[in-house]
């Protein structure tokens, strides 16, 4: 073990689940978990909300001893009949990988006309990004993505891992989960700042579909600023470049941009694609140094810990995350307030429009109350 490696004891995302999400981003219609029936159950359910079918070979005690070649090939044929898929993914689990199950042989046995991506992954990797990587390599082998995209993704994954090690969920041996600061208090602070004529940077640096909710915070701040007549004091940055990333990820960027446009919100700086959250930090830093050095406060949403503090030192930094274990690391970075959007992820699955956030709703309600009080 290298000196700087730490032994993390809090539970964290699994590489099997990471592989499942990656298959979804590759637009598979069916993902087959080759393993025990309960493996990754909760995420399998969530992914079904997102429109893909997740099924399992349900290996039992006999399956562990005798292997599950036949179970897998039979299930491949069955899902092909049931769902008529255009692309299928097969994902390994701890149990099937430990007993040395081969994924390609059952695929040959089934002999379908549909391309199948076989991902030999288990959950025993310290960084769950390994699951994404293995899924992408398998997709490249199956001809679903090209080498260029694979190389691009590799860079992003390495950076994503580094981001987590620096200030994220892999930065300490044990991170206490927290619900963060009271949304009411922070909303009040933001509204007062805007009232006082302070200049605001919104930085949405969201990971893929989570952007559907983090975008709402950008929307809410702009709405409030407009009502207060200070629209010009707000500059918006967001990672919504829809020319980058896997098919589904590009689609999210297009959908969110359409909603922004419809709501009359201008994104002044597009800081990258929706899978580029680990590498947008540098660009954001440069932009601030060049153009926005005199701003008073910043609201960073999504993966706030990927944005370096170097050029944010003179601003009051407020961040919004969906990770309860991200609160303390963000405070350690120097953010004055950290808000957690609890259960954000499930609410952003299976949607293609911006969904309301609690923080956004709080800001809207509070502004209304303040205006009503002033009128009265």
């Amino acid at each position, binding site marked *: 073990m290298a000196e700087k490696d730490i032994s993390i004891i809090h539970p964290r995302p699994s590489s099997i689940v990471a592989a499942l999400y990656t298959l979804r981003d590759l637009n598979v219609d069916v993902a087959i978990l080759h393993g025990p029936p309960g493996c990754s159950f909760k995420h399998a359910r969530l992914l079904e909300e997102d429109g893909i079918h997740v099924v399992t070979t349900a290996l039992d*005690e006999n399956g562990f*001893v*005798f292997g599950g070649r036949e179970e897998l090939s039979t299930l491949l044929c069955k899902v092909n009949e049931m769902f008529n898929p255009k692309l299928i993914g097969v994902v390994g689990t701890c149990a099937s990988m430990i*007993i040395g199950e081969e994924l390609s042989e059952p695929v040959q046995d089934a002999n379908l006309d549909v391309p199948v991506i076989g991902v030999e992954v288990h959950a025993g990797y310290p960084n769950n990004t390994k699951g994404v990587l293995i899924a992408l390599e398998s997709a490249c082998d199956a001809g679903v993505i090209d080498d260029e995209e694979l190389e691009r993704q590799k860079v992003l994954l390495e950076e994503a891992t580094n981001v987590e090690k620096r200030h994220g969920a892999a930065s300490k041996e044990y991170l206490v989960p927290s619900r963060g600061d009271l949304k009411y208090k922070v909303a009040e602070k933001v509204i007062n700042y805007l009232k006082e004529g302070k200049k605001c940077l919104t930085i949405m640096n969201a990971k893929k579909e989570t952007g559907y909710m983090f975008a709402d915070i950008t929307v809410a701040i702009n709405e409030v600023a407009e009502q207060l007549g200070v629209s010009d004091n707000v500059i918006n940055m967001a990672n919504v470049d829809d020319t980058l990333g896997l098919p589904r990820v590009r689609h999210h960027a297009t959908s969110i941009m359409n909603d922004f446009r419809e709501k009359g919100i201008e994104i002044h700086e597009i800081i990258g694609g929706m899978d580029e959250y680990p590498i947008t930090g540098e660009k954001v830093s440069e932009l601030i140094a060049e153009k926005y050095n005199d701003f008073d406060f910043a609201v960073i949403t999504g993966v706030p810990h990927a944005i370096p503090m170097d050029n944010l030192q003179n601003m009051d930094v407020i961040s919004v995350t969906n990770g309860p274990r991200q609160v303390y690391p963000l405070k350690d970075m120097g953010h004055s307030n950290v808000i957690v959007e609890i259960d954000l992820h499930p609410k952003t699955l299976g949607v293609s429009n911006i969904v309301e956030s609690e923080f956004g709703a709080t800001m809207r309600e509070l502004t209304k109350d303040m205006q009503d009080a002033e009128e009265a």
Partner: protein
Amino acid sequence: MEQKRIAIYGKGGIGKSSTASNVAAACADEGYKVMIIGCDPKSDSSITLLGGKRIQTILDLLRQKIDVKEEDIVHEGYKGVKCVEVGGPEPGIGCAGRGIIVAIQRLRKVCKSIDDMDLIIYDVPGDIVCGGFVAPIRKGLVNEAYILTSGEYMPLYAANNICKGLAKIDTPLSGIICNSRSVTREEEIVKKFSEEIGSKLMAFIPKEQIVQDCERDGFSVLEKAPDSSVAGVYRELAHAIMSNDSSVLPSSLEDERLRELTR
């Protein structure tokens, strides 16, 4: 008397199954109630107690999803020795180690007669390649371990490694058995080895063709050639095992010392 539950370890091919079945037969001759549980996926431990006949293994039946009962898996052989074979998946597929764990759990659940035995012999595979292969010990089913070796370097090397393993899992060693391959100074070498790891030599089984001949016919020496001298050796060994009441947590030798010993 307290029930003896032993396991015989040793390098693959050194004669564990032969020794186990001949000891089982010798003990049965003495009137002891004996069970032999073959834990090798090859399922050949009990074959010479059953006149060369193979029995259905526990895993054979589990694979067919049969609700296994005692009479399906416990077969009486020579002089009432109860024979059980764990079995295993096809070579190269699934997990034999897990198979042993599952099969033994099932055996304990359905086999009532196991508690009445005077001696239970677990015939374990030579290579303890994963956790499942030490399950009989780890699950507290075995209370005495023996190691079978010849005086050759490689079997002794394996025996020495097994000593390390036994110490690691806190299992005492009850003795060393020498199954001769007719190499020079063999008894002396194995005796010395036994002493240096803190144990004792239980028996020296000479290499005799009669053992092979009986096996080829599907029988133990005790059944087919009870008057042979080697049958007498097995009887003595059986007696020594049944009356053995000392065991030690073995130490192991440095590689260099082991080499020196066999030179």
